């Protein structure tokens, strides 16, 4: 079952491949972010960026990938790839990697990528670094240096995979920057088909239940008004929504509010939630555990409102107010609305 490791010839491996994750025929944001980052890495390596697109009837997405910088798309279109299950996807990507021998393969650290990439790494015997927040090429070796948080964000570790190819990583959504789209860009599309994808289906999807959220994805929002334990209860999140609405954003939360059942899990910012980098992040009644800070400290402007002057959130806030969010937030909303009304009339 376990083979003795063969030495691979690293020189044979060229190019950066990214897994272009799509669900229901729509590309996930992280796919564009991966291409954006890969373009920067490709400059250091002098190579191309290839997107691996798997699914069924997804050819129209190739244009999208070109628009955001892909030099080439490898398209695997198969009915067995329509809805994600682990093994058919792992099989196809493993075969692509065997054929094309990329030097680097990147995946989004999503509920799909974090299931798929480990299986591929085990199958082709190469390293995999999870949930990276930083990627760079080491000047002297040309190896990929992968940086990730560990211990709940307390420590950062930089990891290399010097002797195995491809060098693989899953990358945290929301951390890398996508390129601005180049309308009308085109790229090479190569079809990759295998006769026996369906034979790898061992998990049967009986039902797909979508969570209905009428709210904007917190990773897409330019303004986030975030509530923590200090909000006291779910009934007080209404005032956060009002402020968020006035500023054209949406609400998010700390882990405490999710664990208490006050808000949905998809609102959670932090190490076990989502990483966000809005233009404005307003933390209300959030103490700022290191796990939370790890998910929001790259926001452009951070405002914190908290009763406790020693709360760690004030360490990362540009503007901090020591006080009761329940009292201050409605007054701030009033000020915001007033100022907007004045602007309109001016």
């Amino acid at each position, binding site marked *: 079952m376990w083979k003795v490791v063969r030495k691979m010839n690293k020189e044979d491996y060229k190019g950066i491949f990214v897994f272009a994750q799509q669900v229901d025929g729509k590309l996930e944001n992280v796919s564009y972010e991966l291409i954006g980052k890969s373009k920067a890495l490709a400059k250091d390596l002098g190579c191309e960026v290839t997107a691996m697109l798997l699914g069924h009837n997804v050819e129209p997405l190739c244009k999208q990938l070109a628009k955001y910088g892909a030099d080439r798309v490898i398209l695997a279109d198969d009915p067995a790839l329509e809805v994600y299950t*682990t093994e058919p996807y792992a099989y196809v990507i493993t075969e692509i990697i065997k054929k094309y021998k990329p030097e680097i393969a990147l995946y989004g650290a*999503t509920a799909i990528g*974090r299931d798929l990439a480990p299986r591929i790494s*085990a199958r082709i015997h190469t*390293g995999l670094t*999870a949930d990276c927040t930083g990627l760079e090429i080491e000047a002297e070796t040309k190896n990929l240096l992968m940086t990730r948080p560990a211990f709940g964000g307390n420590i950062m570790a*930089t990891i290399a995979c010097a002797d195995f190819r491809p060098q693989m990583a899953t990358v945290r959504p929301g951390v890398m920057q996508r390129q601005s789209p180049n309308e009308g860009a085109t790229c090479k599309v190569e079809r990759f088909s295998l006769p026996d994808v369906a034979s790898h289906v061992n998990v*049967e*999807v009986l039902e797909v239940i979508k969570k209905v959220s009428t709210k904007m994805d917190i990773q897409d929002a330019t303004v986030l008004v975030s509530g923590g334990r200090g909000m006291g209860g779910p009934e007080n999140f209404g005032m956060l929504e009002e402020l968020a609405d006035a500023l054209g954003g949406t609400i998010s939360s700390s882990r405490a509010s999710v664990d208490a059942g006050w808000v949905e899990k998809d609102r959670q910012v932090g190490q076990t939630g989502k990483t966000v980098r809005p233009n404005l992040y307003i933390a209300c009644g959030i103490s700022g*555990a290191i796990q939370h800070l790890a998910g929001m400290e790259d926001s452009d402007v951070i405002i914190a409102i908290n009763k406790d002057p020693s709360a760690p959130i004030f360490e990362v806030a540009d503007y901090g107010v020591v006080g009761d969010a329940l009292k201050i937030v409605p007054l701030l909303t009033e000020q915001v609305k007033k100022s907007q009304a004045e602007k309109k009339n001016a």
Partner: protein
Amino acid sequence: MNIIVSIKQVPDTNEVKLDQTTGTLIREGVPSIINPDDKAGLEAALRLKDQYGAHVTVLSMGPPQASVALREALAMGADEAILVTDRKFGGADTWATSSTLAAAISKLDYDLIITGRQAIDGDTAQVGPQIAEHLSLPNVSYAEEIWLEGDSIKVKRQYEDRYHIVRVKMPCLVTALSELNEPRYMTPGGIFDAWKQDITEWHRDDLEIDDSNIGLKGSPTRVKKSFTKAVKGKGTVVTMDPQESANWLADRLHDKFIL
């Protein structure tokens, strides 16, 4: 039915603090716990045992003190505990950890293998799917509910914006989320019995696996350096009455051209 639950002993990272002067982790006095996702996986196994009857084996790779976590699992109701421990397994990344655990599991009879989705000290979520791959088993990750249905397992599989209800024939591997359940406490009788029970220890020579697949030497990835994140400079913090605070914040939003 034979169920194997793979668990990891981890420091309670909620309790880990940084030494502000040296920038290193203060681990002294930090309690060790069974990793939360793994504990939910164990609870799921015990519920299947309660309902249908099953032999539950807990398995852990780690230093000798990881036996404490295994004893807790026995006290919760597991039937058998195996500690995979050897200096030669040390320094393993997820690849080498999963191949070692898979080599251990391959010595046992199993219908269902449950691991936690991820451990709170590393947060990788890689070892479960990698074990499944090494054993050529189907896997379902991120399980929020698990049901038995004949010779199959049904799972409510979590994604960011949806769930899949999936069915998979055993043998298979499932990775558990802590949302799966509320793990039971150890019972006094259970604790008493657990201390009398033997924990089987497996060392390097008990596993059929090549040296190139274990420990630091069998790890494709290496940590080049670790560091604490540079802290962003502290901004302005004020204490005023609520109305003044709101006005001051609105002014700052003007400064930043947000208003």
